[in-house]
């Protein structure tokens, strides 16, 4: 049985409210808040980046897993804001958490689904008998153009998952993916801020892939909506995941524990994984979680995850995602622009 041996997350402390961003651009905060269904987003400290967030998340996962980091055979860090364009984040993580030199590593990119792709890669290496444990991380310190709609949601955070076959807190029953060449959101090389297709990012992009991937997973594993206790979808804002749930006939209450976007924004590669971690923090043994990520460009990875009896004991001594969400300090728009290096 392959599954999650330990997991953990990290969300930077600073927050900026929607109304403080709206005030600068003369936008109506209430219509933004209602339109996006988000209140505030996380902002990294000047000395935080995807590598530091990945390390903190990985250390939490390691604490829960209780394994020797020297037994980790693969590390994949998925992000669209790696600190270097060339020089992997994954080896920085390996060095910081005490891995040996006997591991394979790579950084992945696929917009917001780079982290879940890493989980699939690690699963393959484990099932193939090549490694004992693998570490997959999704983390981002997302950038957005000042004044653009994305400024309200582009946030920072990440989650790490150690996958293996021993002492798992949740089984990964199966995975299914749906990919296509759909340019809904992109950033050209050397250009600072991403661009997007406006309303095109909805039905032909997010919804098409999320729905198809979820339905594909359920068909493959012969599961129905009622088999799942919780559902986590990638959260680019607070509206899309609820609409996806509605289209799929999934009760929106099942999204609640993983619905981190309202208080921290869209953490890109960290989004669905932080949602999964937050859900695992409260799920009970034998409950089943649906996870569907989404990465622009485009694709979705879906997973069916069943919680085991070991979870309550193992998650006890690791900081909960809700604690990270609650531990916050607000910054002004000018402090925000300084922290994000825009000025």
């Amino acid at each position, binding site marked *: 049985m392959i599954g999650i041996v330990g997991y953990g997350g990290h969300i930077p402390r600073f927050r900026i409210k929607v109304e403080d961003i709206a005030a600068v651009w003369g936008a109506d905060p209430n219509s933004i808040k209602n339109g996006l269904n988000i209140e505030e987003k996380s902002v990294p400290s*000047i000395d*935080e980046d995807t590598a530091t967030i990945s390390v903190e998340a990985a250390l939490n996962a390691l604490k829960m897993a209780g394994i020797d980091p020297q037994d980790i055979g693969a590390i994949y860090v998925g992000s669209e804001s790696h600190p270097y364009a060339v020089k992997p984040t994954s080896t920085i993580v390996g060095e910081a958490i005490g891995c040996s030199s006997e591991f394979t590593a790579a950084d992945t990119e696929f917009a917001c689904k780079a982290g879940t792709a890493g989980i699939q890669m690690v699963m393959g290496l484990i099932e193939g008998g090549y490694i004992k444990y693998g570490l997959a991380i999704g983390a981002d310190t997302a950038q957005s153009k000042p004044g653009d709609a994305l400024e309200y949601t582009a946030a920072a955070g990440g989650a790490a998952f150690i996958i293996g076959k021993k002492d798992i807190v949740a089984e990964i029953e199966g995975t299914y993916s749906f990919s296509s060449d759909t340019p809904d959101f992109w950033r050209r090389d050397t250009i600072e801020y991403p661009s997007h297709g406006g309303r095109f990012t909805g039905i032909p992009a997010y919804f098409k892939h999320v729905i198809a991937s979820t339905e594909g997973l359920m068909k493959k594993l012969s599961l129905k909506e009622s088999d799942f206790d919780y559902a986590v979808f990638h959260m680019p804002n607070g509206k899309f995941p609820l609409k996806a749930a509605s289209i799929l006939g999934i009760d929106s209450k099942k999204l609640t524990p993983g619905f981190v976007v309202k208080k921290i924004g869209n953490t890109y590669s960290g989004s669905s994984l932080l949602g999964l971690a937050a859900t695992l923090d409260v799920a009970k043994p034998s409950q089943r979680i649906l996870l569907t990520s989404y990465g622009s460009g485009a694709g979705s990875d879906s997973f069916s995850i069943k919680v085991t009896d070991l979870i309550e004991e193992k998650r006890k001594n690791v900081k909960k995602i809700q604690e990270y969400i609650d531990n916050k*300090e607000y910054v002004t728009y000018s402090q925000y622009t300084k922290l994000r290096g825009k000025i």
Partner: protein
Amino acid sequence: MGHESSVPLFWRLIKPRYQLIGTKCKTCGNVFYPPKYLCPVCRKEGVLEDIKFKKTGKILTFSIVRSAPTGFDKETPYAVAIIELDDGPKLTSQIVDWKEDDLKIGRRVEACFRRIYTDGEEGIINYGLKFRPV
């Protein structure tokens, strides 16, 4: 390109800086962080081995830097402190995620992984451990 941009100079200290690995003298039992390459107590009788320290401790003294050295100007004001690890050794680092009343002698802290210094737009990024109040 002076020592500020040196690659080997920083690479060499990755393990002690990222993982809080110091040295312990098997002869006298003293522990050292930052690591010592010769036991200053035993000298030639000393035999040193690596030891990983717990990442918790307390503030012994602190200050807030407002006039920065080259490379740190965007970060002011930032707090620096001498921290006594629970395992014994004392080290110097920054305090992060602090509020006014966190900067006190005796305040308990834990290590966290952060950027320390970035060599401009083209050079490497140096990471290490800073400490935050618990």
